[in-house]
């Protein structure tokens, strides 16, 4: 009977507990799906706490006196096993005040649910899954191995959402005093997320000690967000002022909350404050839009760079030889596979292998290009449509060859560590390094190519053949060799594009197919025989794609761009930077 009543109370308390949890969560951040699941799970285990409020508070009193007298981590930690949630909070707070280097990882392990205790001996441990499905228990306090245990012999130190939020802040406070600025920044962001009245003193203290300006900015933002709720109107105004141009999501959320809460309040001062706050929000929104535009352009330029790399070889061969190489995509694919193979050959040097892959891919694809030119294209000279078909056939053969050798599945190409990571422009805009590298890389390739075409004898001969083949031939230029080398050069650059692409997408037999139509569009749009045309074409296409994407979705954006090019070519059938005059029309 007693049990039934208790469980009834439990149910009631449970539902109200969820509400309370949800509410406190809302102040911090909107709960995601995972959070929601956690909330439920924690609320379930949290029944006992909420169902016995009275007994608990008594216990709490008695235990807190007990805690205050104990000063070592080992002893405090031991209390965790039997303590209820409120006591646990107290214990953890106390642990945090200890000047013990083990405190931070210890609290973090509780937060991550990694701290267990052995049921029999009440020892706090971390566990490791062994091959025999048992767990190895390692003492959480001194790292000694305590033997193997079955899963149910170890029990987790439970936490609830309330405790979780508290621990995050506690961890942040611990980290904010760290000597590592990166750790401090993370801590500051964590504090910003959970900014509330309780953390204000802590923040004030941190600000006074902080030397790094960007970390200080985060802390000041957190401070301002808390001050928004202050009773002092001057503080509130100051807070709004310091939130101007602040790009943290929390700032805007806090301002919106502030506006909504004070709209009910009709006093003169709050009206002014609301207008001011609204203006600030508008300002932030403008900045956010600007950020989005900047980000889209960045994505667009990086896509443009990829297209540039993919299309530039195509433009060269088309410009010089009037040949559309349908196997160009496969040259890209060969470059990507070359990267893969080289990485397999030097497995421990992801970064170095990437650099070695650049000339290797150029050679592999370039030689393949020369081979194709000498064996097939040479015989189809002056028949561009037949060349298109023959090279398409070659593309099928190459695809199948790669599929037969490497298998139909995508291969894993590693990204070296120096290509990972992001570059922070402001709080709302982070740019990934790999894209930045590819932008720089493609521009380097373009510049190198421009120099080759302008300054070398081969470049001169190539340009001569482009402009007037019979004349170049009669001046002793071996046009056949120029053709072969041009085709090799175009294909080689495609190989280099493959190296770049291996860092962005999956390396598989169909890699080339994905980029070939876009490359054609670049050439058609930019015009042939002109590097600038290819550059402008690639960038316009890349940016256009990425600008339409947020509005229409990726697929529709692509369709829009394709249709736009089909319409564009009506106006300028030979592209943006077309050669004019009599010579071209034949």
């Amino acid at each position, binding site marked *: 009977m007693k049990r039934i009543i208790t469980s009834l109370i439990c149910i009631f308390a449970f539902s109200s507990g969820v509400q309370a949890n949800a509410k406190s969560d809302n102040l911090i951040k909107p709960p995601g799906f995972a959070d929601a699941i956690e909330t439920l799970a924690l609320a379930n285990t949290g029944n006992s706490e909420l169902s016995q409020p009275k007994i608990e508070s008594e216990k709490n009193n008695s235990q807190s006196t007990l805690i205050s007298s104990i000063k070592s981590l080992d002893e405090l930690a031991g209390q965790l096993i039997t303590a209820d949630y409120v006591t646990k909070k107290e214990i953890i707070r106390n642990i945090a005040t200890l000047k013990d280097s083990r405190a931070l990882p210890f609290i973090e392990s509780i937060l991550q649910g990694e701290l267990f205790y052995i049921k029999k001996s009440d020892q706090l441990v971390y566990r490791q899954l062994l091959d025999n499905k048992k767990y190895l228990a390692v003492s959480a306090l001194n790292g000694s191995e305590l033997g193997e245990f079955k899963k149910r012999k170890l029990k987790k130190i439970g936490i609830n959402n309330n405790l979780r939020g508290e621990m995050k802040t506690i961890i942040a406070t611990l980290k904010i005093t760290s000597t590592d600025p990166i750790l401090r920044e993370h801590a500051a962001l964590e504090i910003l997320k959970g900014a509330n009245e309780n953390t204000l003193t802590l923040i004030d203290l941190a600000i006074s000690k902080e030397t790094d300006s960007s970390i200080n900015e985060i802390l000041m933002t957190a401070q301002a967000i808390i001050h928004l709720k202050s009773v002092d109107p001057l503080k509130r105004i100051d807070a709004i002022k310091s939130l101007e141009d602040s790009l943290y999501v929390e700032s805007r959320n806090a301002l919106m909350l502030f506006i909504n809460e004070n709209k009910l309040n009709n006093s003169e001062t709050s009206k002014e404050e609301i207008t001011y706050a609204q203006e600030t929000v508008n300002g932030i929104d403008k900045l956010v839009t600007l950020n989005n535009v900047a980000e889209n352009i960045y994505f667009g330029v990086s896509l443009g760079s990829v297209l540039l790399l993919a299309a530039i070889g195509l433009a060269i061969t088309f410009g010089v030889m009037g040949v559309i190489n349908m196997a160009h995509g496969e040259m890209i694919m060969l470059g990507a596979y070359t990267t893969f193979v080289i990485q397999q050959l030097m497995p421990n040097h992801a970064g170095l292998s990437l650099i070695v892959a650049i000339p290797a891919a150029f050679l592999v694809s370039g030689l393949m290009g020369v081979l194709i030119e000498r064996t097939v294209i040479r015989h189809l000279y002056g028949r561009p449509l037949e060349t298109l078909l023959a090279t398409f056939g070659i593309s099928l053969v190459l695809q199948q060859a790669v599929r037969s050798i490497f298998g139909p599945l995508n291969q894993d190409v590693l990204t070296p560590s120096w290509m990972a990571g992001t570059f922070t422009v402001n709080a709302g805009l982070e740019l990934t390094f790999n894209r930045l590298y590819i932008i720089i890389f493609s521009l380097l390739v373009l510049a190198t190519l421009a120099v080759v075409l302008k300054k070398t004898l081969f470049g001169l001969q190539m340009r001569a053949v482009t402009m007037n083949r019979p004349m170049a031939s009669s001046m002793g230029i071996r046009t056949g060799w120029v053709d072969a080398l041009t085709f090799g050069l175009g294909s080689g650059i495609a190989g280099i594009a493959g190296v770049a692409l291996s860092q962005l997408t999956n390396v598989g037999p169909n890699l080339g197919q994905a980029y070939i139509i876009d490359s054609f569009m670049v050439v058609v749009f930019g015009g042939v025989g002109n590097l600038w045309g290819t550059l402008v074409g690639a960038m316009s296409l890349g940016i256009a794609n990425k600008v339409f994407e947020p509005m229409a979705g990726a697929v529709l954006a692509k369709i829009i761009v394709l249709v736009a090019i089909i319409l564009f070519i009506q106006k300028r059938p030979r592209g943006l930077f077309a*050669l*004019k*005059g*009599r010579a071209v029309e034949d």
Partner: protein
Amino acid sequence: MSLAIPKHLENAPILYLDGVSVSFDGFKALNNLSLCIEPGEMRAIIGPNGAGKTTMMDVITGKTRPDTGTVLFNHKELNELDLTQYDEAEVANLGVGRKFQKPSVIETLTVFENLELAQKGGRGVWQALMHTLTNEKKQKIQNTLELIALQDKAQDLAANLSHGQKQWLEIGMLISQEPELLLIDEPAAGMTDEETMKTAELFKTLAKNHSLVVVEHDMDFIAALDCKVTVLNEGSVLAEGSLASVQKNQQVIDVYLGR
């Protein structure tokens, strides 16, 4: 000069170019060119390479749009027409026929079919689909074949003709179009002396009821045509007059021999 009596529109020119300029990427192919062809006139045009002869023809036939200037054509019924407003096919159908520098016949069709395609009328898609060759039309083609001395080759592919024969076939196609104005680019190229003279005779016959503009390098041929000569240089008219007077012109001599 063999000036035939104008059939219509006395003294009004059949072709009138004024201040025509064309440039390609900064290069001035035609520079303020003015030219006037009277109805029934035969005019020879000479000039060094790059003087703008072919570009001039391109402008008249609607292939190239001039940057500035007027190009007027005096049509039998429609009177003054601004040729820059029409495309190649429309200009051809208005009665301006053109023969190219390189003989361009349709090589995969027979000589007969080439002439059939050139024959006046029936340019619409539907007309072409439903086209039947009447005896009258067959006869006309037969006549043209005789005129260009290719009656034995009627069923041969045009590709199998000699260079000179191709030139003749193209002239025959031009005649079949029944144009009012003929623009002829280097008709004598690749012909034997005998053929050249025969061509000149043919043109003189044609000039009786057509207007002709002939571009040529062969001075003997031009002498045989015996008509007014215009010298082009760097896209504009350098001199105009009889062949004899032009040949004495110091500027013309400078241009041809180099200063």
